[in-house]
């Protein structure tokens, strides 16, 4: 199968999902819009980690730091009284996260393997404690965004007012589409190929004289900036940030999302975010579990274990699993009708 048909095959479901999401507010109530907005923000967050873990092979256990710092930058930099301007607040939030990613990456990339995982965790914890314990953050109570949600204005003409839920929804959807498209292009570029090479066999890359460090660092910074974008959107949506946004549980959740969806695929990250959020709603639902719903952590924990054990390729790999079962051996599949 030639590459173009393959690309179309991959692009089609993505475009269909995009269309469905664009039409969703028509059929759903205000809660549905809220839920979908939240899930899309998490999808952006998952995509940003996918760049680091899935495409470059750098298992970062501290990604929540960028997410949380993006959110905190949004609330701390917003002016006290009037609504902030989207034009500078959004880049500022992404910039803050990217800056910390630069700092974290520069230092962490000196370590390898499991030590790398732990060092990224350590840096995330540092950011957590700075926000939790020092006067910089609001402490464990978090900070509310009191001045109203940002607007994008040209002079006195308001283009985008994020205070309105529907506008926020489409803004987030647009950001998700932009992030997805940006990463898709990035991964197909020379830069992306370099990252793939680093993931496959870094030593070999270096043996050919290729300097891998700047590429890894760049991946860190881009990934951090995108997580900062997700953090900005999250802070705007809730008008509130809290140190728990930087906790290692948050870092763990996003890792679960991309593994659940399928490592190495951008679609997997988005799918994983949706699946994880909906799973949580499922297990908390009293309609299905009755009084046992209060123990929803149990269902979630078991699902995570089973998913990682049985679906190492994630949900994206499900279709391939079925194909193999239904179509038999590869030889038979080749002869079978498409």
């Amino acid at each position, binding site marked *: 199968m030639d590459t173009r048909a393959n690309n*179309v*095959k991959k692009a*089609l*479901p993505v475009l*269909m*999902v995009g269309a*469905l999401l664009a039409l*969703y507010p028509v*059929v*759903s*109530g*205000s*809660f*549905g819009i*809220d*839920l*979908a907005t*939240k899930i899309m923000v998490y999808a952006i967050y998952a995509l940003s980690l996918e760049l680091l873990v899935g495409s470059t092979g750098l298992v970062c256990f501290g990604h929540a730091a960028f997410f949380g710092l993006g959110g905190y930058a949004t609330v701390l930099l917003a002016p006290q009284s009037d609504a902030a301007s989207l034009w500078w607040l959004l880049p500022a939030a992404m910039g803050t996260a990217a800056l910390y990613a630069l700092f974290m990456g520069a230092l962490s990339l000196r370590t390898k393997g499991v030590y790398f995982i732990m060092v990224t965790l350590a840096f995330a914890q540092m950011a957590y*404690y700075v926000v*939790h*314990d020092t006067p910089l953050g609001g*402490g*464990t*109570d*978090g900070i*509310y965004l009191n001045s109203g949600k940002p607007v994008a204005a040209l002079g006195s003409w308001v283009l985008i007012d994020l205070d309105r839920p529907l506008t926020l929804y489409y803004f987030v959807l647009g950001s998700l589409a932009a992030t997805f498209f940006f990463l898709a292009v990035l991964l197909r570029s020379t830069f992306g190929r370099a990252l793939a090479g680093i993931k496959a066999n870094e030593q070999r890359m270096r043996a050919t004289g290729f300097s891998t460090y700047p590429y890894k660092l760049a991946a860190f910074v881009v990934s951090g900036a995108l997580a900062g974008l997700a953090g900005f959107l999250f802070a705007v949506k*809730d*008008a*509130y*940030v*809290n140190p*728990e*946004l930087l906790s290692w549980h948050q870092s763990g959740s996003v890792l679960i999302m991309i593994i659940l969806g399928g490592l190495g695929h951008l679609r997997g990250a988005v*799918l994983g975010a*949706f699946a994880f959020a*909906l799973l949580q*709603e499922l297990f*908390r*639902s*009293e*309609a299905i579990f009755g009084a046992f*719903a*209060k*123990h*929803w*952590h149990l269902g979630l924990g078991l699902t995570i274990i089973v998913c990682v054990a049985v679906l190492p390729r994630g949900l994206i790999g499900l*279709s391939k699993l079925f194909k193999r079962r239904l179509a038999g051996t590869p030889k038979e599949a080749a002869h079978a009708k*498409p």
Partner: protein
Amino acid sequence: MTTITKSFLSISLAAAALLAAPLAHAQAQGKLKVGLMLPYTGTYAALGTAIENGFRLYVAEQGGKLAGREIEFVKVDDESDPSKATDNVNKLIKRDSVDVMVGSVHSGVAVAMARAAKESNTLLIVPNGGADAITGAMCAPNIFRSSFSNWQSAYAAGGVVSSQGKKKAITITWKYAAGEEMANAFKEGFEKSGGQVVKQMTLPFPGVEFQALLTDIAAAKPDAVFAFFAGAGAVKFVKDYAAAGLSKGIPLYGPGFLTDGTLEAQGEAAQGMFTTLHYGDALNTPRDKAFRLAYAKAYKLQPDVYAVQGYDAGQILAVGLKAVKGDVTKKAEFAAAVEKATIDSPRGPFTLSKAHNPVQNIYLRKVEGNENKVVGVAAKSLSDPARGCRMQ
């Protein structure tokens, strides 16, 4: 199966899941939807259960109906996590379209609920979260509290400690809003009666390694220590304090949370401690005795202050509902009725201030055995000053 069909199928499945998630509950005619947002998991889970038990007990005593409307419960687990609070409260308001919200335990979560309640003009009764702001700067006609404000018990404690002859005190608590409010209120009450708070110590929430700070307290040699911790932190602090030998020379005081629900775990270490709270054991009024009996019969557990707060939340709701004949859209009449009412609570009768916080007696309790025995009244009909409230 073609690519298009496969994609379409998988996506429709996902879409169905997304549409199903915000399950629209059919509005049964006449039923009043009460949304309980309480911690059902995590450190405060026991408190959440106690509050729900208390609330349900009251509704059951009224035959399952308040003002002629049957009560339907919807529950959301808030996990005592303020970062998820806005999401969770939106579930109650937007997905389940509740008429009344009851919650929460954690002050941070309660504040998020209050904000959402203000925005959507939904009735909210707070059965615990003591953040001063809820009936202070954030007060609103549709927000009520059946519990306490952090200021009340700590201010009363200040008076008590001073009346017991102590001149120099140190406060110690976690570094968060509730801790700061308690420590400052104690300082206010203590210094008003002539005492002096020489040091205000804090440690990050929810740390429980106190040894270093206890050593510091011993070095400073105050006359008394006022501490606010809750749950496991309270157990550990009281035990560590006694184990460090401080309780002999420097008596430990605190709001009732330091010794409520924790006495069995604290054992010897807590004996003889004085605490202040709007409820206690051995109150010995007929009302309280009846409540305790009914609660023990229904749940095979002894009630605590949280159960009482849940019970009284039900009472407040009943009072308001009766006045508006079950029509929750009449917020002004609801509030007016509650402001005029006297709630016949197991803790003793109380009224609600203009800011909708209980005006109540703060009892002085002493730990004897496994009980926080009420030995006196630390402050009579104490009303929170509701600083910043524009409703007064």
